[in-house]
């Protein structure tokens, strides 16, 4: 909603109008108020149609483009210098051992070519001049690590792979706040390193990599810089067009650097909005369905953690609010195991499972194919259509002992065994598939009460509108019932292995309709105090076991025994931030890090962008942060407060440290730790690309995660056999993998068939006819689709060559009112090393006509594999070491 306050909005890596039409109303409102809207996207979409400027870009080249903007800002001194000096780590001096990609032809220091991992030791802040006892200890550890590394003893465990999967919402902790040069002149200060790193990203290079003309770069740079500073703010919006890349986390880092340099974080109409994939995807990371985090972004314990103390050690006591991790952790354990969790048994810490390695979705699929994973729950997920490399997904499903599918419709992931593409080709034979499939009909969102947490971190409650049909039941009912039945089965067991289940605080009574109460669960998530009453703030959480809380960041949603997610005061009856509509974590705070909306001295940057400020007269002259939102700062911490040396936790937050979840309180232009693939973003080509990386000899992200399997064969880069780029996407008319839309007449008629979109130039080059058929081929498989020839797909000029992109909406499969091939069958699995997400961009060939049927399809693809010269011993490398 705060988007309406922006003076400029840059939407990139997102087709917001089509995929988030309801949220897009705030962009329309901002535009109505005079904001400039810019859309950077490979295609001219419904978002571009409403934007003031559309910039066509080659899919996957966003870091080069954003780097060009960063370079423009730095070369012309257009950064918001006062903000940058005070609130970011621009002034921090980096370790003398650090080497940039400029020095190592595309690698940072610390790369191990054997493992593909970085050791981030040399990316550290230089230690402070006056060392505290803690600093001395850290310094000794660093020196020991360096010594063991040089003596070939290998890395100390804690530094391997930068532990990108093991820290929570606060980012990785730094060892010390470090030395700073606030003149920004020191050659090793972050500001100078950044300037040097991005100096290569000239307008000419941007043109060569992205296909964007220098004039367009300048125009967008002018819009961004002209709408940033004291008086104005710019907001960014992104979605899976940034996250689904082998460099996805770094694309978002590049945007964060740009927005931080421009002073647009923590201010109204600023920020970077991550548009989530569908309802409550934000909720499913807050209370996660991910393997490596627990509710509230607590890290999942590692096998090395033998006790609660060891688990919280890395974060506890560090500066900032994340230093308070122990009360959050203990309260979570109390909510899981209730009375069974005591100080004497470490609050049942040993009952928590431990992470033994990468158990992300694609690793799990590989494990299924190899026989390691035997059972699988699919709940509101249709990987046979919606996930990358559909063939791998289906081969995995076909090799299970059991599969539970809970869905609204009979989806392809439940019927792959009778009519999937591999049955057609003969790769799978129905009679030989051993997977026992249990299909359980699920209640839809209008058939059950519950909350959604949306992209703005807002929880919104919805009541049940109608009864679910037939046997369809809610997820809540299903899991409560499953728990009840398993616990009944195990009752009386003396096996220690069963204690975690038997000791669970698992008491969910059913109402007259036979449904457990969702509000009771929300109250449990909110947390309760020693008297059993609902808590009102996470600052009330205790480490002594007297409080229980299912997700510390949600603490307060049930304050005063009232379901605030259900608050619905209309905007004309309340304050300007609409604080009585829903509830936003944390603490119903609408904008995070909003201390940064005031200047270092605590006064608003400008009257126009006034939001949170220091009122020195409040509380009888003691002073207090006040404003339009809940201040995201210690309420009475004065702007001139300087922490005592050696202070810990919130006590270590200075009056000018707005980023209170960071151990140094600053926004990171340079990430000294925490990322698996470098402290600054660098453009690498997608794993499949028609062009060479013009920046460095290093073609691809060196630490990308590969998935080696013959059906995941990567197209060699620069291959003439696969000369075109393809990118997949959604249409407004359909929902993700299609189960909720391909099955409904009113939605199916709006986009009735799978199609591909091509430019007139590509159509002429390959003889494709409007509304005719095309076959799109990769080394995974080939699919067919009808052709739309349209100017909305642009031919891009990169240096002296053209690059063509094929657009593929991915919604279709073999079930539903209308059927067709699934474009995700073309997508390869090569992952970002931080978050294990695939790259949505690949290369392909496209030919007029329908694809071969049956076994002939396999022979057809085999021909492409042979001609592209793929090395079948290492198909995951694309036939060459790049």
């Amino acid at each position: 909603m705060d988007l309406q306050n922006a003076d400029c909005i840059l939407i990139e890596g997102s087709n917001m109008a089509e995929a988030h039409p309801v949220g897009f109303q705030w962009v329309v409102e901002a535009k109505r108020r005079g904001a400039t809207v810019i859309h950077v996207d490979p295609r001219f979409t419904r978002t571009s149609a409403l934007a003031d400027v559309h910039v066509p870009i080659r899919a996957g080249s966003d870091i080069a483009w954003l780097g060009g903007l960063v370079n423009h800002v730095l070369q012309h001194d257009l950064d918001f210098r006062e903000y940058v000096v005070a609130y970011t780590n621009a002034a921090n001096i980096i370790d003398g051992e650090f080497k940039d990609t400029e020095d190592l032809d595309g690698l940072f220091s610390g790369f191990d070519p054997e493992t593909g991992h970085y050791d981030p030791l040399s990316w550290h802040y230089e230690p402070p001049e006056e060392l505290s006892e803690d600093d001395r200890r850290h310094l000794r550890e660093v020196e020991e690590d360096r010594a063991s590394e040089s003596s070939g003893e290998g890395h100390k465990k804690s530094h391997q792979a930068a532990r990108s999967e093991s820290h929570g919402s606060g980012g990785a902790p730094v060892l010390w706040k470090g030395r700073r040069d606030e003149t920004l002149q020191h050659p090793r200060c972050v500001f100078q390193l950044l300037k040097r790193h991005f100096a290569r990203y000239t307008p000419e290079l941007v043109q060569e990599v992205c296909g964007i003309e220098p004039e367009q770069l300048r125009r967008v740079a002018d819009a961004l810089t002209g709408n940033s500073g004291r008086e104005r703010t710019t907001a960014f919006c992104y979605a899976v067009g940034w996250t689904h890349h082998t460099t996805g986390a770094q694309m978002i880092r590049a945007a964060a650097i740009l927005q931080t340099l421009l002073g647009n974080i923590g201010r109204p109409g600023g920020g970077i909005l991550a548009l989530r994939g569908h309802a409550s995807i934000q909720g499913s990371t807050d209370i996660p369905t991910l393997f490596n985090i627990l509710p509230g972004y607590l890290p999942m314990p590692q096998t090395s953690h033998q006790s609660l103390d060891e688990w919280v050690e890395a974060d506890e006591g560090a500066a900032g609010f994340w230093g308070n991790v122990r009360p959050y952790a203990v309260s979570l354990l109390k909510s899981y195991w209730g009375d069974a969790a005591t100080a004497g048994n470490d609050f049942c810490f040993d009952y928590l499972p431990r992470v033994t390695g990468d158990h992300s979705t694609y690793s799990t699929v590989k494990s299924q194919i190899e026989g390691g994973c035997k059972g699988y729950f699919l709940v509101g997920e249709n990987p046979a259509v919606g996930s990358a490399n559909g063939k791998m997904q289906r081969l995995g499903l076909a090799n299970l002992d059991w599969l539970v599918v809970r869905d609204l419709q009979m989806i392809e992931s439940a019927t792959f065994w009778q009519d999937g593409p591999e049955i057609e080709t003969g790769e799978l034979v129905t009679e030989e598939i051993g997977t026992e499939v249990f299909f359980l009909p699920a209640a839809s969102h209008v058939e059950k009460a519950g909350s959604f947490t949306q992209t703005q971190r807002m929880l919104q409650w919805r009541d049940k509108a109608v009864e679910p049909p037939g046997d369809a039941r809610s997820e809540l009912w299903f899991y409560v019932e499953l728990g009840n039945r398993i616990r009944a089965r195990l009752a009386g067991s003396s096996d220690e292995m069963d204690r975690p289940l038997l000791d669970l605080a698992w008491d969910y009574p059913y109402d007259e309709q036979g449904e457990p109460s969702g509000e009771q669960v929300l109250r449990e998530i909110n947390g309760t105090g020693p008297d059993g009453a609902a808590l009102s703030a996470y600052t009330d959480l205790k480490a002594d076991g007297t409080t229980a809380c299912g997700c510390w960041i949600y603490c307060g949603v049930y304050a005063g025994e009232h379901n605030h997610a259900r608050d619905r005061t209309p905007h004309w009856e309340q304050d300007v931030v609409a604080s009585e509509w829903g509830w936003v974590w944390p603490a119903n705070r609408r904008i995070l890090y909003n201390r940064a909306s005031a200047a270092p001295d605590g006064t608003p940057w400008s009257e126009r962008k006034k939001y949170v400020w220091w009122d020195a007269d409040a509380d009888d002259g003691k002073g207090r942060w006040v404003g339009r939102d809940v201040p995201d700062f210690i309420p009475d911490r004065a702007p001139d407060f300087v922490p005592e040396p050696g202070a810990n936790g919130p006590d270590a937050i200075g009056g000018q440290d707005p980023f209170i979840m960071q151990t140094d309180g600053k926004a990171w232009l340079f990430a000294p730790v925490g990322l698996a693939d470098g402290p600054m973003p660098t453009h690498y080509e997608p794993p499949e690309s028609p062009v060479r990386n013009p920046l460095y000899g290093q073609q691809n992200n060196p630490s990308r995660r590969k998935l080696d399997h013959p059906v995941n064969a990567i197209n060699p880069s620069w291959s003439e056999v696969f000369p075109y780029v393809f990118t997949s996407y959604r249409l407004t008319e359909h929902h993700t993998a299609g189960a909720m839309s391909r099955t409904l007449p009113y939605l199916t008629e709006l986009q009735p068939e799978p199609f591909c979109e091509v430019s007139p130039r590509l159509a002429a080059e390959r003889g494709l006819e409007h509304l005719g058929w095309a076959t799109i081929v990769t080394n995974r498989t080939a699919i067919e689709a009808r052709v739309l020839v349209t100017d909305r797909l642009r031919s891009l000029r990169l240096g002296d060559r053209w690059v063509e992109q094929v657009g593929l909406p991915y919604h279709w499969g073999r079930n539903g009112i209308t059927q067709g091939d699934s474009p995700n069958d073309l997508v390869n699995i090569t992952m970002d090393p931080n978050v294990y997400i695939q790259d949505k961009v690949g290369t392909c060939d496209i030919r007029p006509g329908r694809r071969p049927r049956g076994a002939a399809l396999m022979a057809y693809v085999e021909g492409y594999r042979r001609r592209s010269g793929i090395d079948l011993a290492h198909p995951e490398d694309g036939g060459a070491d790049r």
Partner: protein
Amino acid sequence: MSLFSDIFSEGRLWGRLDDVTGDAGYDEHPPRMGFFTDTSVCIGCKACEVACKEWNEVPDDGYLLTGMSYDNTGALGASTWRHVAFVEKPFETVADRPPQGPPVTDLGMPGVGPPAREDTAAESGDGAMRWLMSSDVCKHCTHAGCLDVCPTGALFRTEFGTVVVQPDVCNGCGYCVAACPYGVIDLREGDGRAFKCTLCYDRLKEGQTPACAQACPTESIQFGEVSELRLRAANRLQELEDQGVDVARLYGADPDDGVGGDGAFFLLLDEPEVYGLPPDPVVPTRSLASVWKHVGYAAATVAGIGVASFLGRRRP
């Protein structure tokens, strides 16, 4: 004679008519209600099409990929009461214009086969094209041709000034289809009767907003009193002009146009033809007086000829 002149005078069958509802015979009535569809903020999500069908239980219209951009429902009809048009249109740059003569209005219809302008589209960046979207609907005309010609009374003017067809009265004669200057109302195949937008008459009677306007996420479809909507439309046009948008224009908002102004009118960003709308719609009954006059002349002439021929026959 006075009755004749009253019926055919301006205001009853054509021209300005300020109280269409009162004119239809309602003494006490609520204000005239309608739509203002501001296409400058339409994002082509088609939520209006779906909400309309859901609420009014309109059947699907078949599963046909038309190739007309993202428009697969084609046009308004018996089973499509809201229709979102998608027009892919190159900007009219100097290069796009023919060497001589005035600029040609491009209807934005996609051609078959590879278009010719391959390099200009590629190189011209953000200035290359526009993608116009507009949610079309029954105009609920001040002078509704469909209503005027309906022989059964199935079509009637509601107390809200809207025009509604009653399926249980309609006999499927199809006169209304030919009488609509916009081509909105149509007979449903396999059913035979005429259907069109009711402006959610049932919802209006409950004080609710029509389903399409309720579902629109960007307030492109605005529902309200026609007199107030006309002010809103004029303000929006001014706002856009102030922002430098010089292509915006109102369509159907003028009470002096050929249908006496529409109850559902539009802000467009191009010529009406580009969106598939008639540039100057005229209610067929506008010609009724002159038709009758001509019929009179014709009748007199025929009678005269008849008499003449009769006389002539007598001549020998």
